[in-house]
């Protein structure tokens, strides 16, 4: 009977669809069977999963060691991850834009560190400005190549990382640069040092000691008993939060990250948006680089090593999706804090650094699995 009916016309009522057929016979079709109600558990896991993890880790930590819950220990955890937090905040913009990750972050940290050390002999502020400008330049190059020429972001930023590493090692002849030591030999290597020496040979007699103390002190300052770098991390994250969710750029970035072609067809300047994301990433890496170099009291190519993958791990833990357009700053903080807690608890148990790496890797796999699974439950298997 139904086969013979010709559907001419139908309209939708709120609850049921009614078809009028040729013979003016009405029959009802079952309501749209697609699930519109979402699985509450899956929604929570995708949105706040990382905070469950922090809670579990906290319970675990209390069981493992009574020292865990002490203020100084928690401050230590935060201090240890604050550098990562700064860098991850920057990279979160690249992930958010749907361009996977900025793999040039480690060498951006290193190169901005050495540039800061070079310029710090004019004053700490000059050093910082020079470092941030270097970051902006690197970010602009990355952003242009990825945003305009549309080169694969991972491949390009990795290549950039190699180029920057080569640049640092070549220009320092493989040496490191110490903020508090300089002789005639030092001024023959480096990026700007030979130029500085040429412009003003008296630079050799400069009082480096006090300037180096100011620079090295950056990572050792404790306003109100809390490390300066922690303040900086929170400042960067709050700024990141505002930029990501409250500005024109951040909201356009969300559309770009969710679907590049849709953003393009909606009149969003994708090239400019992607470029800005990479610039933010590099500037954050530069800030992280300055503090990291200050902490190590030496400028060298290995400053920041491993921060690319650690940052990505933290970001995915924090609910960002490599597919882009998903996640928020609270999650970024959660992800970074989780990594810190894991490492802290493992140290309290007495597990060495190398074993820790393996465990962190395993946790990464687990989290990605859970994340992917809950996304699939929500019907988003393309995430």
């Amino acid at each position, binding site marked *: 009977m*139904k*086969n*013979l*009916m*010709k*559907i*001419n*016309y*139908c*309209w*939708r009522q*709120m609850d049921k*669809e009614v078809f009028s057929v040729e013979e003016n016979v009405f029959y009802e*079709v079952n309501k*749209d*069977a*697609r*699930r*519109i109600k*979402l699985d509450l558990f899956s929604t929570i896991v995708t949105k706040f999963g990382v905070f469950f993890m922090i809670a579990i880790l906290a319970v675990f930590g209390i069981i493992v060691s009574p020292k865990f819950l002490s203020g100084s220990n928690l401050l230590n955890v935060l201090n240890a991850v604050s550098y990562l937090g700064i860098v991850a905040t920057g990279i979160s913009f690249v992930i958010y834009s749907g361009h996977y990750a900025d793999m040039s972050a480690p060498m951006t940290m290193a190169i901005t560190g050495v540039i800061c050390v070079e310029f710090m002999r004019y004053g700490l502020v000059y050093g910082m400005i020079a470092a941030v400008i270097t970051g902006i330049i690197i970010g602009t190059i990355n952003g242009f190549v990825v945003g305009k020429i549309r080169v694969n972001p991972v491949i390009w930023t990795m290549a950039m990382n190699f180029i920057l590493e080569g640049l640092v090692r070549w220009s320092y002849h493989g040496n490191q640069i110490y903020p508090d030591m300089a002789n005639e030999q030092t001024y023959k290597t480096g990026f700007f040092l030979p130029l500085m020496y040429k412009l003003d040979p008296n630079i050799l007699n400069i009082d480096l000691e006090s300037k180096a103390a100011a620079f090295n002190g950056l990572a050792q300052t404790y306003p109100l008993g809390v490390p300066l770098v922690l303040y900086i991390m929170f400042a960067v994250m709050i700024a990141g939060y505002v930029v990501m969710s*409250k*500005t*024109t*750029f*951040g*909201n*356009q970035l*969300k*559309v770009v990250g*969710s*679907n590049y*072609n*849709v*953003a*393009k*067809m*909606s*009149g*969003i*300047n994708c090239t400019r948006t992607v470029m800005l994301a990479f610039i933010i990433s590099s500037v954050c890496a530069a800030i992280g680089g300055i503090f990291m170099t200050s902490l190590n009291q030496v400028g060298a190519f290995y400053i920041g090593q491993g921060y690319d993958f650690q940052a990505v791990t933290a970001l995915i833990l924090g609910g960002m999706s490599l*597919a882009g*357009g*998903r996640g928020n700053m609270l999650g970024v903080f959660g992800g970074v804090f989780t990594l810190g807690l894991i490492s802290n608890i493992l140290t309290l148990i007495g597990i060495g650094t190398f074993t820790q790496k393996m465990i962190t890797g395993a946790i990464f796999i687990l989290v990605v699995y859970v994340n992917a699974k809950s996304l699939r439950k929500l*019907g*988003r298997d393309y*995430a």
Partner: protein
Amino acid sequence: MEGQKVDVMLSMKGITKRFPGTLAVCNVDFDVRAGEVHALMGENGAGKSTLMKILAGSFNDYEGEIFIEGKPVKLHTPSAAKSAGVGMMYQELSIAYNRSVQENIFAGAIPGKGIFVDKKQLREKTIQSLARVKLDKTIDPDTEMKNINQHECQLIELAKVLNNNPRILVMDEPTSALSSDEVQILFDIINDIKKKGIAIIYISHHLQEVFEIADRVTVLRDGRKIATCNVCDVTKEELVEMMVGQKVKEFYKPKTSHAGEKILEVKNLTRYGFVHDISFELYKGEILGVVGLAGSGRTELGRCLAGADKVDYGEIILENEKIKIGDINKMLEKGIAYLTENRKLEGLALRLTNRQNILSTIIPRLSKGGFYFPRKGNNRVKELYEELNIYPNNTDLETSNLSGGNQQKVLLAKWLITKPKVLILDEPTRGVDVGAKKKIHETIVKLAKEGVAVLLLSSDLPELVALSDRVIVLRRGHVIGELNEELDENKLLLAANG
């Protein structure tokens, strides 16, 4: 043919296929004889492609029976269809453009010696199969596909299908990208294949071609078979009437004359290879339809006007002011909005909420000093929700949770919120249910009443007839005419076909 024993190669009996909410194919009987070219015709959505997909084994839940050479077969998987002798040649070619001709033809079945490729045999076999499509003299098997022009690609695709020795060959719009000379070459080859006793099912919108090549024709409409007849027994007009039928019109929009002022003038718009010297005028409150077959440059025209594609030359004059054809953003600021035909790839970011999707076009307008204030847009979003009756009525739901029709409404809302002066709609109701279609049509008419100029690019003829004040006809990238009096589907179909 009478008196001779006629071999029925394929016989489909009582085929029915349902999709949620629609009956795509309804109790269709269809048979094809060995050695004939059987044309399958019908408008978009008539059920042609669903029927052919059933034959190709794309569905495992069709109702009805299929017989090949009298034996019942179950075509529940593509491989079952392939081994039953069904060869499909789709409109979109499945060619790896940076591989050679021989690798393409024998993709998946490269002859080998142990684990190595038998190059000699591969070459010989390729030449044999190229001979079937008369390309053995002109194309070397080692040539890379990207160096081969479009119509030869089509023939190579055909050679690839013929390699499996099909008994039934389905050709879906094989001529949509070919010039008339090339069509002739293809027809010669089809006549050759026919003589070998292969049954050919030929799907085309081009009436002329059907009369030239087909022996019999079956017309489908709304999922049902209207008739099967010998091509020599029908006229073009009869065929068109069978396809179009006497339809219950959803509604007719009263035609407006050019009372409004001119808002847009397009002069000699050209994008080489796609649209050539397109000129037309658009008035306030007018709905201008554009009709054209696939490949006629319909979509490209819309994309060029919206600034999505580069334009080689031509002018756009908007409200007596010549504007530079820039990128989408600039055209949007000027008031030209383009609703893409490809909702999933270019229209909506499915992972955003409906509100975010709708507001994505006006983020700069809701911003002040670099900061974004979406609340200012919320009222307008709610208004649009009510106007378009989007279900479910929750603006914070992810767009992926909506049905196709409601997604399409969200897509329309996304462009309506920009308050365009000129709205270009590319297939605004493709693949949506009838209820949503009606709502979208009503909205379009309402917009026109409010003074928006609408350019309606559509392959849905009833839609064009019902909504358009005038229709311009595109054929192979050129405007070949304009229809404004007493539009009906027959006229449009004939005009687009030429």
